[in-house]
C-alpha cells in the first residue's frame, strides 16, 4: 500500500507535475487503518486531500471502500479490491462485516463508476500474493488514461529486480480488466 502510493506520486512527477504523497496512520503495523493520499498538480500545497474532492479512490480491502467513500468527488471513480480482512471488532466485539450489497449501495450514493478487482486472486494466480497492489495500480492506470509505459517505467525502478516481470504481469492484468462502468 505504501509503495503503491509512492508509485502513483512518482508517475505524477514523471508526467512533469508537482506531486506530494502523505500517509496517515497510527498503530498501522498492528492491523489499524492506513490512509495514503497522493496529489498531482502544477503546484501542490497541501499534502492531504479533502472529503468530497478526491478524483480516484483505491480501496485495498473491500469494506474500506465504504469507509472512505465520503472522500470521493460525486461521480469520481472508486477501485475496490474484493479481498476481505476481518477487523478485530468483529472477533472481540459484535461488529459485523457488511454485506457486498451494503457496501455496493454505500458506494453508489456517491458514484456509479465502481471497478471491482480480484486483486488477491489475480496475484495468487501469478504466484505472489503481494502483487495485489500492482494489479490495483493497473486498474487505476486504465481509468486515469495515463500512458501505461510511464507507469511501468516507475514500477520497474521501484521494485526489486527479481520481481520486475511478475509486477509487469500484475500491472497488465489490472490494466486489461473489465471496462469502467459509466
Amino acid at each position, binding site marked *: 500500500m505504501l509503495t503503491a502510493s509512492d508509485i502513483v506520486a512518482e508517475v505524477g512527477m514523471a508526467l512533469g507535475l508537482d506531486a506530494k504523497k502523505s500517509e496517515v496512520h497510527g498503530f498501522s503495523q498492528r492491523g489499524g487503518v492506513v490512509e495514503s493520499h497522493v496529489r498531482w498538480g502544477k503546484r501542490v500545497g497541501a499534502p492531504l486531500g479533502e472529503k468530497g474532492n478526491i478524483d480516484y479512490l483505491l480501496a485495498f480491502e473491500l469494506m474500506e471502500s*465504504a469507509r472512505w467513500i465520503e472522500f470521493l468527488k460525486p461521480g469520481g471513480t472508486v477501485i475496490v479490491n474484493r479481498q476481505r480482512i476481518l477487523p478485530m471488532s468483529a472477533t472481540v466485539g459484535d461488529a459485523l462485516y457488511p454485506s457486498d450489497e451494503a457496501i455496493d449501495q454505500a458506494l453508489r450514493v456517491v458514484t456509479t463508476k465502481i471497478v471491482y478487482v480480484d486483486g488477491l486472486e489475480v496475484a495468487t494466480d501469478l504466484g505472489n500474493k503481494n502483487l495485489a497492489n500492482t494489479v490495483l495500480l493497473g486498474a487505476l492506470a486504465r481509468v486515469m488514461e495515463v500512458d501505461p509505459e510511464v507507469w511501468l517505467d516507475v514500477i520497474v525502478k521501484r521494485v526489486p529486480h527479481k520481481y520486475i516481470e511478475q509486477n509487469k504481469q500484475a500491472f497488465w492484468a489490472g490494466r486489461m480488466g473489465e471496462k469502467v462502468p459509466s
Partner: protein
Amino acid sequence: MKKLLSGNEAIALGAKIAGVKYASAYPGTPSTEILENLAKMAGVRADWAPNEKVALDSVAGASYAGARALATMKHVGLNVASETLFYLAYTGVNAGLVLISADDPGAWSSQNEQDNRHYARFAKVPCLEPADSQEAMDFVAIAFDLSEQFDTPVILRTTTRISHSKSVVNVPEDNRHAPRALKEFVPDMSKYAMIPANARRRHPVVEDRLKKLGEWANTAPVNQIEWGDKSMGIVTSSVAYQYASEVFVGYSFLKLGMSYPLPEKLIRDFASKVERLVVVEELDPFFEHEIRAMGIPCVGKEYFPLTNEFSLAVVREGARKLGVAQPDYATASVAAQVPARPPALCPGCPHRSTFYTLRKLKLRVAGDIGCYSIGVLPPFNAIDTLGCMGASLGVAQGVDAVGENNAKHPWVAVIGDSPFFHAGMPALANIVYNRGASTVLILDNDTTAMTGQQENPGTGKTLQGASVQKIDIEQVVRGMGIKDVFVVDAFDEPAVEQTIKAAVAIKDRPSVVISRGPCVFLDTYADKYIDDVDLVKCNGCSLCFRVGCPAIYKGELDATTHKPKALIDPLLCIGCDVCLQVCPRDAIFRVGN
C-alpha cells in the same frame, strides 16, 4: 536530479551534505527514519542511544570536540533531553549542532500533542521550521551554519506531516558527504563548564545572542513575504502554510521559516501594509502571542483550532469565518455500517500471553509505552495507567508506598526492554532503594518493536547491525539486588500465568518477571506450523477470542451453546500456540507446514 523524498529522508540527506560527522537518537515516531537513513551514509557515525538525553549529551560532546553533530527525537523525547538543551543553550557549541524535534499534532502515535516551539523560546535558542521536503533538506544546512555563526544549538522542528509526507526535492548532483576537519577544542571553562559563576556570566551572552538572531531573522531568506491582496496578511509556517496557500488564494503571505526568534521588523513592516493580520498556526498560539506582545494586533486562535492536526477542511472553516469564500464539497455521509478496525497485537506476538493472563488474574496494571500499549484495548482492557517511557515502575512504587498494592488490589508494572534501558533502570533502583515490594514484568521481545524494530542495548546489535556486547536484563536486575527474578518463555501461557502468580504472591520485597520471546518481525522468530480448530470439539466458549488475535475470527454458531465457534485464518496464523494453550476443550491443534 528531482526525487520524491519524505521530510525525514530529506533531513538525512541535508545532514550528510552539511558534513555531519556524528548523529545520535532514540527512536520515536515521526523522527525515527532520519537516523535510519543516516546510518546508510558513508562518513557519518550514527548511533541509537538508550534515551534522548543521552543522545543529546553525546551530540554535545561531538560538537565540543569539533564535529558537526545531529540529535533527532520525537516531541516528547525533548522533554527527556530538555535538561541537556538548557545547558547547551548556555555553553553554546564548537562545531555546529542541530537538534531535530519531530512534533506530532494529532497525536497519531504519541501520548500528547505538545508544541515544541515553546522549547526554543524557553531555552532561548533558534528554531527553524521547514514546510516541505525541499526545505527540510535546505534548512539543515542553514541550521548548521547558523549554529556555528551564532555559537548556539539550533532546533529544527518538523511535524508528522512534514516528516512523513513525500514531496519533490532537487537533489544536488554532488550530494556526497562533505568531510570536514575537526575544529580544535580550545579549553575554555568559562564557556563550557557551567558552575554557577560561569552560568551567571553566560546568561547575558545568551540574551545578546538572541537579539542578534532576531536581527538576522529580519533579512534571512528562510522568512519570505509573498505579496498579494493586502486586505489580509497571513502569517504562517510549516504545513499550515501549505494548507493556507490553497485556502487564502491571492492574499499576502508572510511565511516564517524561522519560528523563533521572530523577525520583529519584518513582521511590523508586513503588518503595516495589510489591513488585517491573520495568524494560521497548528497547535499553540505561539506566533500570535509573540506578535501581540510586540503590540501588533492580529487574530488567530479564534478562527483556527488549538487542538489536533490541521487539514484543508479545518483551515477552510476558519477562512469562511473570516469572510473568505470557500468551495463547499458535498460530502456524502457513509451509508454503510463499517466496523472500526482497532489495532491489535500481531498474530504470534510474544506479548499476548502476558495480557491474557493479566486480564484473567484481574491484576491492576501500571503500563508503559510500546506495542503492548494495545493491552489497554479490548479484549484485554488490562492496563490501568499509562503515561510515558518508564512511568510504569515509578507509578507502581508510589501505589505500593501508600499501601494500595495489597491483597485486594495487587498491582504490577509492565515495561518493555527498550523503555527499561530508556528510563526503567533508575525507577527499578528506586524500588529497590526505597524498600518497594512491586512486581515488575519486563517484556523482552529483543527489539524496539513499536517504532519499527530498532536495536537497543539489550539486543546485542548496533543501528548498523554490527554485533556488540549484549546487556543482559536479568543480570542488571540481579545486580540491583533483586533476589526474586523469574525468566519465562512468553509463548508458554500456563507458565506465564504461574510465574506472574508466584511473583505477585511475594509481598515483602520486589520481584521481577522477564517474559522472553522475540517479536514476529525478527529473523529469530521460529514459525513451523499453523494452528487450526476442530469444529466438532469447539463449542463456542469464546475463551480463545480473549487472546485478541487477528487470525482468530467468529464462525458458525454452535448448535447447543448458540455461540460462534472459532475459525483460524491460515494466511494470518503463524502457530504461536497461545490460543491452543487456553482452549479448555483441546479443540485447537497444530497443522504441519
